[in-house]
């Protein structure tokens, strides 16, 4: 603020300081950790997109004369036990891991949000059944569900995605229901009802716009959980089968060569940790923006 700011009477009025502008300033004043999180997530997503068309080398190209190369200009992260370029495999692995995690979150979103909405609108037997079902699913650990499903229909990207997706449904169903309930008890919904709007119209015009920001935070946080689960499953050999490069799978094979080349295990491990860190800080940041009272409380 300049020192020449106009003073009206005794009360200094900062230019443009209305409730609305304060609201927007708060929305766009991101904490440094949120910015870091957003940057990391952007880089990860860009890497995944770029790897669709371009990686420095073919992620599956074997070169028997270039095994276990240390990082160099030609191979920034070195090469693995078959002489395959680690950076290329990591990039392709980003794509596979991200697609699988996004798929799982999509399954959870598509089933969970409508289920939560129905549970909020129909609070009788129907809502009770839905929420008990969510509780049952929630009490069954995702990894265990995935292992059971793999035992039944075999390991594949699809199985892993489906299992993690199903196990994540309660996360969306619960947050949707609780937020929807608070919106439904508001006076403008009462007004809308008085006006004769149907449940579907109320859901579309009043409930969904209100829960959208919370869903965004939930998506970021759930993505970090599903990425961990996808990586763990591929590490256990229950996810995308080799030779397709996955972070977990790369880690698993690298573990056989820890004495020769410990760096091989470091890269996929770092990729997982950095991505999860980015998603967590981004998700927390978005949630803090939506509900400043939560800040620093968790």
């Amino acid at each position, binding site marked *: 603020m300049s020192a020449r700011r106009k003073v009206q009477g005794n009360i200094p009025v900062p230019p443009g300081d209305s409730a609305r502008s304060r609201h927007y300033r708060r929305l766009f004043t991101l904490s440094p950790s949120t910015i870091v999180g957003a940057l990391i997530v952007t880089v990860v997503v860009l890497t995944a997109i770029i790897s669709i068309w371009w990686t420095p080398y073919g992620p599956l190209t074997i070169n028997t004369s270039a095994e276990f190369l240390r990082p160099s200009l030609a191979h920034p992260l070195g090469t693995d036990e078959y002489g395959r370029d680690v950076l290329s495999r990591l990039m392709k692995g980003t794509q596979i891991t991200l697609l699988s995690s996004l798929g799982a979150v999509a399954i959870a979103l598509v089933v969970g949000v409508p289920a939560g909405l129905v549970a909020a609108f129909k609070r009788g037997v129907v809502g009770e059944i839905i929420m008990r079902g969510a509780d049952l699913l929630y009490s069954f650990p995702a990894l265990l569900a995935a292992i*059971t499903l793999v035992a039944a229909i075999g390991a594949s990207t699809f199985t892993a995605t489906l299992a993690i997706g199903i196990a994540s449904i309660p996360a969306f169903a619960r947050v949707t229901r609780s937020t929807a309930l608070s919106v439904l008890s508001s006076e403008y919904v009462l007004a809308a009802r008085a006006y004769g709007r149907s449940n579907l119209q109320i859901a579309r015009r009043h409930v969904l716009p209100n829960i959208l920001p919370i869903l965004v935070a939930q998506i970021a946080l759930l993505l*970090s959980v599903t990425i961990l689960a996808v990586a763990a499953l591929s590490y256990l050999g229950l996810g995308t089968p080799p030779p397709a490069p996955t972070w977990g799978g790369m880690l698993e094979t690298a573990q056989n060569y*820890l004495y020769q080349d410990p760096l091989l295990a470091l890269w996929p491990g770092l990729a997982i940790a950095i991505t999860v860190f980015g998603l967590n800080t981004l998700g927390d940041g978005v949630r803090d923006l939506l509900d400043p009272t939560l800040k620093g409380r968790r």
Partner: protein
Amino acid sequence: MQVADLGPTIIARRRSITYQHELRRFLIRRVTTLVVTLFLASLTVFWVLNILPGKPAQVILGTQATPSAVAALTAKLGLDRPLVDQYLHWIHGLITLHLGNSYISGQPIAPVIGSALEVTGPLVVGGLLVGVAIAAPLGIASALRHTRRSGVILSGIAQIGIAIPNFVLGILLIIIFAVDLKALPASGFITWSTSITGALRSLVLPAVSLGLVEGAILARYVRASIIEVLHADFLRTARAKGLRPNQALLRHGLRNASIPVLTVLGLELSGLIIGAVVIEAVFTLPGLGSLLLSSVENRDLITVQDIVMLVATAVLLVNTAVDILYRVIDPRMGLRS
């Protein structure tokens, strides 16, 4: 939210007859929910594992087997009976701890699971100890300094800890302590009967990798819950009557702060049980997780079914116990659902 010191409230509440009555009804309802959930979980597990296209007998005998041999084995395994029969037989076995025989080895499953538990049990307990040992000091320290830069750094450390999955941490620890320092074994398990110190040594790295991450998650809850208590009126009262900050926190703060942490601890415990499955694979420990994975690989479905149900039961039991404990300790929660 207004936070009150619970000590006096709890004692007054416990004495009331209404409370006793409510408590009994609450316990009955909670246990019923547990039984129903277990029943539905068992139905789901059984259904998922028995709709698969591959016939177990065919898988065991291989593609070369004659149809009559496959039929004979199917009959021997009891897989030609109606599914309802098979389900009831399985459940009866689970309740009476007769878990049946492995499809692959033909050996009884119960003793195999028993010896696997000798590894997984201590691993989970060790992980819990490591987790609490990290979470309590880290959480308390970062809460007491939450307005200062050092506190922000401490909670940043916890945030990084959460992002490292346990299997990645396990491999890092192997690189440092087994490959570089050669201080601890990188994999395998020395049985308790061979050498107790040997068994403990082979569990150190797995327990640390399991507990560190859970400890970081727990630390965040410890921090949040202590910050909440620090701002509570009763703590100011305690200070006003002459207690020093640390005394006040020790006498009134920690007990109240521990209530929300307890719930998370329960969730952490089920997280540890599941995490053990992965950690056993990292360190090739012959525990329940390794048994589960090798059974999946060999398509020894009856063993898979037993272990999945066992782990799910353990998780559900822990969650129920924590929920009951939580509501009994904290009267504010109320006993109605």
